[in-house]
């Protein structure tokens, strides 16, 4: 079996079609790698027991001349995306043995394309977190430095890609959960336009913000997977058709004033190096600080709207319809005990916060006001995108931090999302692209360069990503 770690999806596909190796060979190759490395990294919660069966079906498709670019390609799936007949636990005890009863639309599409699902990737519980330390089953480690976090909440997916335990992975992004771990692990992470990828079969965290997207080793693979999973879906009424746009970029905006937000000096230096590299390609760099004055309120707006939506979405986990339960003396006590005993601290914190900001007497001050400010941020970016074709900034203000370093202080953890959040609030697509390293204690830690485009203009992002 040749070394496929540096090959992209197209190259692997060519070799599969040429018969250089089979989908079963490829699957066995990755199963062996996972077997060797997963105990140290804990990227996967579970490897599916039918991987070779799936690979055999892929080989049949290839032999029949019916292969697509994704046929036989081994993928990791974040634990909050439903694969029928498989456990999906959102890394939570309350769903520890929950078996999905239907496929998410993205899974149906990838299955139709002949992709092979290797297993489910670890995450922060119910996608709430920025480090994967909130998983009920243990943290995932950053392959660049095992004492550090891989980021979150799609930490398992990012590590599976970074450590070559799959060709690509699916993650979900509500406030940066694809982009930030991609940045910490030195891989590519795309959050598509809100609505461009169906959310049917994605366990809802914050329904006006959640997006499924690919985590990959290169930009071309992200584009391929995006094209397969996108599409308007009658089962998701917030979904829209997205052709990615024309991909023309001349002017690139940077909100220079906004970058003074606890940005690590080395990370800033790396960002400026990348910015110079991009400018040298002939793009005009424009300071959009004055156009996006409300951007500084993104985090505050997010930490009102998101917990509100979380508190509503989490109400379904009651130990009655599915999942695990802890019995009580009566119905309502059962709710308290089940939710109290099986849901983790960060999730509880956000449920309580959301309950508060939606409660009578407070909803106007918090929730309604937050929506108004959200709309102002949207309008700011409408203005900015009249002047520039894309916006760039660092993905994260810091490189991967140590396991345990931010775990005790929720607000400190939240501040790491400062550059990713607005893309979810506004709904625009954004991708983190690995652009270099900073050194910590003699070890090179990856940094991410974030490229943001207007709604439905993913092709502009792929165009700029070519330069990295």
């Amino acid at each position, binding site marked *: 079996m040749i070394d496929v770690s540096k090959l992209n999806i197209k190259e692997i596909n060519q070799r599969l079609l040429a018969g250089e190796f089979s989908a079963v060979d490829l699957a066995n190759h990755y199963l062996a790698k996972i077997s060797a490395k997963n105990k140290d990294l804990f990227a996967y919660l579970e490897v599916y027991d039918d991987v070779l069966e799936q690979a055999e079906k892929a080989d049949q498709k290839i032999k029949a001349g019916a292969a697509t670019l994704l046929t036989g390609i081994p993928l990791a799936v974040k634990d909050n995306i439903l694969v029928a007949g498989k456990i999906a636990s959102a890394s939570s005890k309350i769903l520890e043995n929950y078996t999905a009863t239907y496929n998410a639309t993205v899974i149906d599409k990838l299955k139709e394309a002949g992709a092979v699902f290797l297993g489910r990737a670890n995450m922060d519980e119910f996608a709430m977190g920025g480090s994967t330390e909130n998983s009920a089953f243990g943290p995932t480690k950053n392959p660049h430095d095992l004492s550090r976090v891989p980021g979150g909440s799609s930490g398992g997916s990012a590590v599976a890609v970074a450590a070559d335990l799959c060709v690509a992975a699916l993650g979900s992004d509500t406030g940066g959960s694809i982009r930030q771990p991609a940045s910490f692990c030195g891989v590519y992470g795309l959050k598509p336009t809100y609505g461009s990828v169906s959310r049917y079969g994605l366990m809802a965290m914050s329904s006006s913000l959640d997006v499924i997207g690919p985590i990959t080793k290169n930009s071309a693979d992200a584009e391929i997977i995006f094209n397969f999973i996108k599409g308007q879906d009658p089962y998701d009424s917030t979904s829209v058709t997205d052709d990615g746009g024309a991909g023309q970029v001349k002017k690139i905006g940077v909100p220079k004033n906004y970058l003074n937000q606890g940005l690590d000096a080395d990370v800033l230096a790396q960002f400026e190096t990348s910015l110079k590299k991009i400018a040298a390609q002939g793009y005009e760099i424009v300071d959009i600080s004055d156009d996006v004055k409300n951007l500084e309120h993104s985090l505050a707006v997010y930490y009102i709207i998101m917990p509100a939506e979380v508190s509503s979405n989490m109400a379904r986990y009651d130990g*009655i319809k599915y999942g695990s339960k802890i019995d009580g003396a009566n119905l309502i006590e059962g709710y308290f005990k089940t939710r109290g005993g099986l849901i983790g601290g960060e999730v509880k914190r956000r449920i309580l916060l959301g*309950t508060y900001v939606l409660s009578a007497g407070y909803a106007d001050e918090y929730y309604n006001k937050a929506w108004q400010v959200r709309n102002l941020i949207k309008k700011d970016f409408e203005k900015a995108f009249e002047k520039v074709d894309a916006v760039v900034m660092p993905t994260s203000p810091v490189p991967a931090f140590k396991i345990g370093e931010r775990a005790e202080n929720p607000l400190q953890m939240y501040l790491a999302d400062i550059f990713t959040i607005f893309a979810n609030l506004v709904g625009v697509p954004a991708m983190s692209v690995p652009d270099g390293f900073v050194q910590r204690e003699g070890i090179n830690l990856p940094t991410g360069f974030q490229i943001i485009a207007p709604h439905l203009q993913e092709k502009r992002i792929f165009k700029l990503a070519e330069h990295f």
Partner: protein
Amino acid sequence: MALMKKEDVEKLAVLARVELSPEELAKIPAQIDEILSYVHKIDSVTADEQNARIESAAVRNVTRPDNFDTAFGNVAALIAAAPEAADNYIKVKKIL
């Protein structure tokens, strides 16, 4: 001035149907307090119905007729997923 006291968190926990351990009850009020203090940043933003309104032709209500033409294909799996089930019913404790 603490926005959030232990009794406030207890009330929220009842509303949210979430039992909190004594350790959680000790830590959470201060944590939520810190977060609420931070999000009060938005108080400084001038926003009202007028300037904070977004008109978009692309945004519309998506509905379909309330016709039940296809049933979910795997009812057995749904029943099997319930922690307590009997016949084709999901079992719950009595409500009244």
